[in-house]
Each structure stands twice: as structure tokens, then as C-alpha cells.
């Protein structure tokens, strides 16, 4: 492949691969916690770090990491103290971050790489070998922590009050999650840019939650989707000459819309099929009950009735009760029949 001949594209693809897997692995907890925009806010805060890094001619990636993690810890402490003032405190922190970053970058001496666009929207082809090493370390650390603490992070994201009641270290886990988000923000900086970071954390999880049957499945699926979208987007951006960040995010949104549509269609046909079957029994002669003459058959949490060789399950809706088909004739055992009676 032509694209792999260039070293800068090799580095770009490697970076997008790491970002693609890592961002959703963290993002899925944010979606669960309904804090989808936390990543966005930490992206703002990271810009101060970038500004400091550029101004002091030290590594912007390292400085951004420090700023973002400090911001993340601060946010969790504010959140833990109470909610009323927390909202405003977050706004101050986030906008302070981006304003500080812009001003600091403008103060940088001429000749410095002060291209604000590169940080805000990503400039994946400028990824250096040094960046790759830093990204590799961040990826390994973030994925290891998620692997190690995943179930606990899930517990806190799902039901914080319960977690506190049973003695899980809620504040510590929240700080860990926020620090993971901050690290991922910095990791994603080059690939999708600080303004689009949240998208790569949230969109793959949003797609996964429509398809997955379990939380574990959702995490793995989100990582897979993130990987595909990120690498495909980067490749596409090379051929179309568009910015990688925007291309990746548009691709993710397209996938999200497609899956949403597919799920909606599937549900609609399911409902239609259900109504058609119900129609067969629209003129049901009587309501099944204890002494209706049809043999009751326990089925999960309800009781079916053996009606001329097939099972009827009561389905109560706003307009009354009708009977769904619940399969063919069961094997008849007297004990089963007895157990079905209330």
C-alpha cells in the first residue's frame, strides 16, 4: 500500500490505532455515568498545558498531561463537595483552560510551533517518534488500569450511592477515572484535536450500547469500533486531503446514525410481526385464567396457556389483554401443570 511507504503516515496510523482503542475504553464509563462531556472539558484544560509547554520550550505533550490530570482531580474534588456550585466551577475551569491556553500560545516567541489549529483539530502527520513513545506508555497505562479496575469503575459509574454505601472508595475511583480521561485527552490531542476528543470517547460507546448485551461486550465492542473508525478515518484523510480528526469523527457519526436506523427498523418490524400474530387471535373467545379449561404452563415470570396445541401468553397493554404465541405444544407433565396454578 502506497500509504505505508511514508514514515509520517506509519506514525500517524500507529497513533490513530492507539487512540482508537483507548478513547472508547475510557469513554464507555463516561457514557454510563452520563458525563459524556467531561472529556471535552478536560480537552479545554489541556490547552493551558500545551501553552505552558510551548512557552517554556519543553514538551507540550507532557505539560498538557500534567495540566489535564490536575484539572481532572480538581473537578472530582469540586464534584464531591456538592453539586450546586459544581456546575459553575466546572464552567470556570473549562473556559479558563481554553482562554489561558490561547493567551499563553500567543505569548510564545516567534519561531515556535504555535499553530493553534494543530492542537484544537489535530495534526496527525506531525506525530514524532517521541510522541509515539509517550502515547504508547499512556495507552498501556490506561488500558491496564481499565482492565484492573474496570468492574469497580463500572460500579461507581452505574450507582455511585450504592458504591458509597457498601464502602467502595468512591472518591478515589472517580479521581482515577478522571485521570484516565485526562490521559486519553492528551493521547488523542494529535489525532483528533482537543475540541473533538469527546467524540472519539463517546460515539463508539454510543454505537456499542445499541448492540451489546452486556457491559463487558459493550466495552470490547466500543474499542473495536473506535479502532476501525480511527484507522479508517486516518487512511481516508490521507487520500482525500482532509483533516484526520474531522474525518474520523464524521465517520463515527455516520456509523452511529446507521446503527441507530438499523436498530429502529429492526424494532419496527418486530412490532409489526407481533401485531400480525396478535391479529390471528384478535377474536379470542375468552380470557385465560385459573379455570378456563386450558392447561397452564409456567414460563419464566408468567404463565402460558396450552391452547389447541400452541402456547398463549397473556400480554397486557393499555387497551386490555391479548395473547402472544409462545411456541409449540410442550411436553405434558402433570407436575408442570399443577405448578402453573397460582
Amino acid at each position, binding site marked *: 500500500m502506497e500509504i505505508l511507504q511514508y514514515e509520517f503516515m506509519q506514525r500517524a496510523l500507529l497513533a490513530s490505532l492507539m487512540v482508537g482503542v483507548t478513547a472508547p475504553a475510557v469513554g464507555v464509563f463516561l457514557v454510563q455515568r*452520563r458525563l459524556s462531556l467531561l472529556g471535552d472539558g478536560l480537552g479545554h484544560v489541556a490547552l493551558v498545558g500545551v501553552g505552558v509547554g510551548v512557552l517554556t520550550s519543553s514538551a507540550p505533550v507532557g505539560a498538557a498531561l500534567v495540566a489535564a490530570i490536575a484539572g481532572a482531580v480538581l473537578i472530582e474534588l469540586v464534584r464531591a463537595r456538592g453539586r450546586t456550585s459544581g456546575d459553575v466551577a466546572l464552567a470556570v475551569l473549562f473556559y479558563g483552560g481554553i482562554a489561558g491556553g490561547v493567551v499563553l500560545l500567543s505569548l510564545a516567541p516567534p519561531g515556535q510551533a504555535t499553530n493553534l489549529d494543530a492542537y484544537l483539530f489535530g495534526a496527525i502527520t506531525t506525530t514524532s517518534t517521541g510522541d509515539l513513545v509517550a502515547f504508547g506508555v499512556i495507552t498501556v497505562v490506561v488500558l491496564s488500569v481499565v482492565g484492573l479496575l474496570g*468492574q469497580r469503575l463500572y460500579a461507581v459509574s452505574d450507582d455511585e450511592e450504592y458504591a458509597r454505601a*457498601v464502602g467502595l472508595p468512591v472518591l478515589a475511583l472517580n479521581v482515577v477515572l478522571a485521570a484516565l480521561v485526562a490521559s486519553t485527552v492528551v493521547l488523542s490531542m494529535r489525532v483528533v484535536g482537543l475540541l473533538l476528543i469527546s467524540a472519539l470517547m463517546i460515539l463508539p460507546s454510543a454505537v456499542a450500547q445499541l448492540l451489546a448485551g452486556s457491559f463487558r461486550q459493550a466495552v470490547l465492542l466500543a474499542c473495536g469500533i473506535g479502532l476501525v473508525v480511527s484507522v479508517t478515518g486516518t487512511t481516508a484523510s490521507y487520500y482525500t486531503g482532509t483533516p484526520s480528526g474531522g474525518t474520523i469523527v464524521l465517520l463515527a457519526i455516520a456509523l452511529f446514525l446507521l446503527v441507530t436506523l438499523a436498530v429502529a427498523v429492526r424494532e419496527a418490524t418486530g412490532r409489526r410481526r407481533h401485531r400480525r400474530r396478535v391479529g390471528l387471535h384478535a377474536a379470542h373467545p375468552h380470557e385465560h385464567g385459573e379455570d378456563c379449561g386450558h392447561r397452564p404452563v409456567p414460563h419464566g*415470570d408468567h404463565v402460558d396457556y396450552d391452547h389447541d396445541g400452541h402456547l398463549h401468553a397473556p400480554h397486557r397493554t393499555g387497551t386490555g389483554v391479548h395473547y402472544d404465541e409462545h411456541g409449540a405444544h410442550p411436553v405434558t407433565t402433570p407436575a408442570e401443570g399443577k405448578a402453573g396454578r397460582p
Partner: protein
Amino acid sequence: MTGHPLAEQHPTEPDRAPAIGLRGASIGYGDVPVVQDVDLSVRPGEAVAVLGSNGSGKTTLARGLLGLASVLGGDVTVLGAPVGRLRERGRVGYVPQRHTVTGAVPATVREVVGVGRLARRGLLGRPTAADRAAVAEAIAAVGLGDRERDPVASLSGGQQRRVLVARALAAEPELLIMDEPTAGVDAANQETLARVLAEVSAAGTTLLVVTHEAGPLAGVLTRAVVVDHGRIRYDGPLAEAGPLAGDAGHHHPGDAEDRRGTAYRQHQPWTSSRPVHARDGEQ
């Protein structure tokens, strides 16, 4: 006789610390006490209903025991330790007042119940065979053994409540605190819950159930504590708690105390200003 001084009815056994001990306790949020000057001692293995109308402070009382509301005065001990310093919080099970499991991302029954086991596993502990067995056992106990791998969102509301009960049971708690476990749950699910709690209680677990109607669980809970305006107004046998114990419609079939049927029917759970000492004259 008026009043039911709990000290006379429930003397603390000297050999065992009470599962729950409140002395002159005030509990609330921020600086505002909701429950004031409460004395209560629950022995290990007791099954207690905390009754009261909405806003009476019964939930705050329970939340104080869980460390979710602040102790503003007096002493509160749980399993022998002051509530703030109870190190093994996993010994306390909690079923919150929540009708359904509402996470944005799907989770299976086993995943939700597995969370209940975390507090027993230490900070980094991996699940052991014993942990997995406890989770499976808890799920089977609430009658959802065949739904273990299903997403919780695909279950009915009553079944989701049972998932939350299983989550608490997975920790094998010594003290189980439940907030309105029967509210909004149909009769069949209430019966299942009563059966599960009977088993848990028989195994020696202390039960504290916050509810506005003890009726569905009257066969399990033996003692009633009635909270009104942040103070305990009755503490004694549930069967003698009168109209406060619940209404006849949900009376447990195993309980033969039908002579109070009329009183039960008169009880309106939504009124907050009804007299709380109605039964006192008859004792």
C-alpha cells in the same frame, strides 16, 4: 399504658454488640437534622420494619446507618463500630429505593449482581470461585437463575428490583438495609421477595426494612419502629403497630391477624398528619 420505651422491650444483650445502635442520635444533611434524638437498638438476627409516612425521616434514618447521611449528634453504631469508622462496609447490604436499573450502557443480571461482591474483594482482588458462587447463589435465591446472562433492561420492573436485592445478597451481608423494597412491585414479586427475606432472616441476617406498608412482608418482619416527624413514636411488635403496619390489601397470607382488617383499610398511606399513637390504648 402510653409510649413504648424501647429500653424495656429490647434490652441489649451484654454478650453481643447490637447490629444497630443509636443513642440520642440526630441524622441529617449538611447542618439540618431530619431525624432527632433517636434511641434504637437492634439485636443481631432481628427483622425490623421502619415505618412512617413520606417525609417522616425513616429513609434518612436508614441512610445514616449507611454513611449516606451525616450523624449530627449522639452515637450511631453499626455492627459494633461507629458508623463513620466501620471498615468492612461490605458486611452491610443495601437495597436502594430505586425502581429500576437505569444505566445507559447495557449490563447483564450477573454483572449488576457481581458489583455486590466487590466490597468483599478488596481494592484489586480478582473474582475467586467463591465470589462467582456467591453471585450465582444470590441470583438463584431471587428466582432469576435462568435470566443470569440477560440484559437487566429486558426484565420487568419487579424483576429488576429482585436484581438489586440479589446484588445486596451477593455480599453475604450480616445486616441488610432495604428502602421501600415492595413499592411499585406486583403481588407475585412481593411474595417472592417475602420468601427470599424469610430465608435470609432464618440464616441469621439482621433485616432493617424501610417501608410505608409492612403488609406484604408481615410474615417476615417481627418488630416495627414507627418514625414520625423525625422521632420514633412506636417501637414494638409489628403485629401491634396497628394501622401503621400496612393495609389489608397486601396482608401476608400467612398472617392470621385479621381482626385489625378494618383499621388497615382506614389507613391512608399518603396522609402525613394522622395520629401515630392509635393503638396505644388497646395494649
